[in-house]
């Protein structure tokens, strides 16, 4: 048993850390304030091959290890969760292609994503189908060699900036019953009939565009279908097994960033003639925060290791990591604001932004209530 990172992971961790400390941290408050997608950070990440981390070398990438991706996302998130989403979504949007694409689909779409010339997005959620993907209404009707897509998607992270989108649509003909037949398609933003609707105004991750997408008679070549017809739901779930550790990594990095801030502040801030870090009330808060983070890290790395080793329990380990790390991020960021006191509540310090950013990690890629459902279903099944 060995919990050490390997050389590749340590190098990437160090490189991402140094880069983000120098270039991302100073931009984080502006990105939050403006709510604009940070193209400069995207270019920076592309230039340093950070966007190539999710991809194996044969498709122009530099790693392809789930654990290595976790390490990178964690480092970025210590400074700016919004920026970490550029990498996470690049991975999320390309995972369906990587997991179920044909060789020619992979050769066509993955290298430009690995180089960061193009951005990816993953379009599953709809106004009427969030946690329950079976309620999907977007439909793809086959006409000869093309599918015609009609419908809309909502809450699509990076949807307005993406070049390549994986869109899930029902390929059955029945209107209102639960979708029986869902398929996945690679949609390019230049395809006629694809439209980006309004961007949402959000509590946090403000520089990460959350878009509504509309599909009006979008003709998608049948060659862009991922896997067989009807395999989309299974693929969507597999993708989430792979992507949830990334959300856990975000939450983990966020919690670590907030903890570091709180610890530094507690050692500097003097009240009653000494640093508040010398009061046991504050010490115990910091000890509990650090212990929760250690637990979250253990689960998150274990889920990455399980993915890399393709262990059978990846659904449970991914859900456990996502659930625990995001709940930890919420608690730790809230406590960090508390330790900073009145200053923590001000926009001048990053603590309140971290707390706002933490909330989303409990919600997206499956609410934490869905994670509990997934975990319970698996453990109740396996002990049968």
């Amino acid at each position, binding site marked *: 048993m060995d919990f050490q990172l390997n050389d590749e*992971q340590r190098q990437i961790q160090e490189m991402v850390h140094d880069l983000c400390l120098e270039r991302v941290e100073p931009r984080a408050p502006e990105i939050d304030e403006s709510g604009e997608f940070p193209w400069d950070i995207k270019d920076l990440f592309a230039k340093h091959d950070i966007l190539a981390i999710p991809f194996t070398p044969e498709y122009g990438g530099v790693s392809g290890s789930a654990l290595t991706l976790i390490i990178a996302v964690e480092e970025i998130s210590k400074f700016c969760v919004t920026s970490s989403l550029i990498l996470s979504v690049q991975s999320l949007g390309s995972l369906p292609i990587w997991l179920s694409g044909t060789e020619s689909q992979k050769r066509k779409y993955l290298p430009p994503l690995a180089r960061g010339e193009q951005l990816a997005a993953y379009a599953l959620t709809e106004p009427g189908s969030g946690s329950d993907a079976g309620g999907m209404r977007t439909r793809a009707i086959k006409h000869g060699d093309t599918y015609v897509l009609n419908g809309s998607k909502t809450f699509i992270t990076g949807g307005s900036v993406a070049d390549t989108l994986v869109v899930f649509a029902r390929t059955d003909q029945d209107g209102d019953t639960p979708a029986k037949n869902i398929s996945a398609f690679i949609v390019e933003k230049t395809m006629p009939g694809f439209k980006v609707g309004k961007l949402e105004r959000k509590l946090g991750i403000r520089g990460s565009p959350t878009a509504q997408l509309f599909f009006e008679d979008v003709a998608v070549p049948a060659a862009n279908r991922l896997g067989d017809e009807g395999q989309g739901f299974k693929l969507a779930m597999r993708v989430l097994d792979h992507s949830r550790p990334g959300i856990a990594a975000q939450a983990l990095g966020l919690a670590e960033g907030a903890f570091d801030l709180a610890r530094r502040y507690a050692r500097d801030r003097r009240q009653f003639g000494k640093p508040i870090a010398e009061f046991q009330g504050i010490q115990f808060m910091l000890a509990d925060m650090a212990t929760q983070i250690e637990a979250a890290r253990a689960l998150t790395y274990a889920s990455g290791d399980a993915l890399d080793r393709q262990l059978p329990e990846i659904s449970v*380990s991914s859900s456990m990591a996502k659930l625990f790390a995001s709940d930890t991020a919420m608690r730790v960021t809230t406590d960090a604001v508390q330790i900073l006191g009145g200053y923590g509540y001000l926009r001048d310090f990053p603590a309140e932004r971290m707390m706002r950013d933490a909330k989303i990690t409990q919600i997206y890629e499956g609410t934490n209530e869905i994670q*509990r459902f997934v975990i*319970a279903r698996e453990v109740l099944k396996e002990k049968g």
Partner: protein
Amino acid sequence: MDLSLSPEQQEIRRLVREFAEREIKPRAAAIDHTDDFPRDLVAKAAQLGLLGILVPEAYSGAGLGHVAFAVFVEEVARYSASTAGILDVHGSVGTEPIVLFGNEEQKRRWLPDLANGKKLAAFALTEPEAGSDAAHLKTIATHQNGKYVLRGTKIFITNAGEAQLYVVMATTHPGSGAEGITTFLVGGDNPGLKVGPKFKKMGLNGSAIAEVHLEDCAVDETDRLGNEGEGFRIAMRALDSGRIGISAQAVGLAQGALDDAIAYAKERKQFGKPIAELQTIQNKIADMTVKVSAARWMTWKAAALCDAGQPFTKAASMAKLFATDAAMEITLDALQVFGGYGYLEDYPMARRVRDAKACQIYEGTNQVQRVVIARELMPA
């Protein structure tokens, strides 16, 4: 990163799991009810070579390290936390100080018998007036005529009265605090060592916990472990890795409670279906599963760091804090899943709740763990 158990560690897990199911599970309730020390189980564990997991092979041990030790303690604690506590104290804080700090003669004298179970060990640090503040213990060791004479009282000593070896901390330089403490190896047959009556406790029944009185207890100079003044460091080092064992005990308790809760939830029908189909029960089971898993990883991480010779004090304290708090929460939740039946002593759920409480208290209360963690996070 390699988060898999080695073939040897997997073999320990298989061996202990099989032993625990066959021998411990049927005895666990009786051990709790009678409060009798389970000598038979200790002897059977010894036959399987489980008493010397941390003892090097050169001294007849298994020489397997702390991950294997944690696996062993967890599997025992799934069925009987008190039996796990007995074996943990023996194998960890009772034995490891000699492995780490003993001279060749001391190792040859004690370790083979400790490893094969001819002798059982205890660790005597805590005193009535020196609990969390162990540096201010009052037991005095006076050096005279080539011997040390120990005088004082130790309290909350696990395996008291059953052990043939007591690792005793006493001050050789009163008033010097931590720097004056020295460690001694005291035989259970020493006429100056007297054990008080077994305490009646909330839980961990079967485990003998008592006062140990040192009344003009003379020990040879050769029974001093390490140098004079080195005792506090020896004790803290023993407790650092001891915490891995307590974490593993808590993980086992929690896993046992979770296993029973899952089985019961699938069997118990209310409103026409198994309660496992109710979302509130599912949520409890999900949260319990996550906490056990996190606690186990933290325990193994501390153990792996220790085995790799890296600093592990913070990791061990975090594991102890997290795993024992998790065990308390999980055993209470598991009892709740059982409803009224959980409250009955006919089922193991109530016993586990009683046992779990001890884990939050001994080998450093969880408040002391937070002090240790905070100190590691913010060195002066």
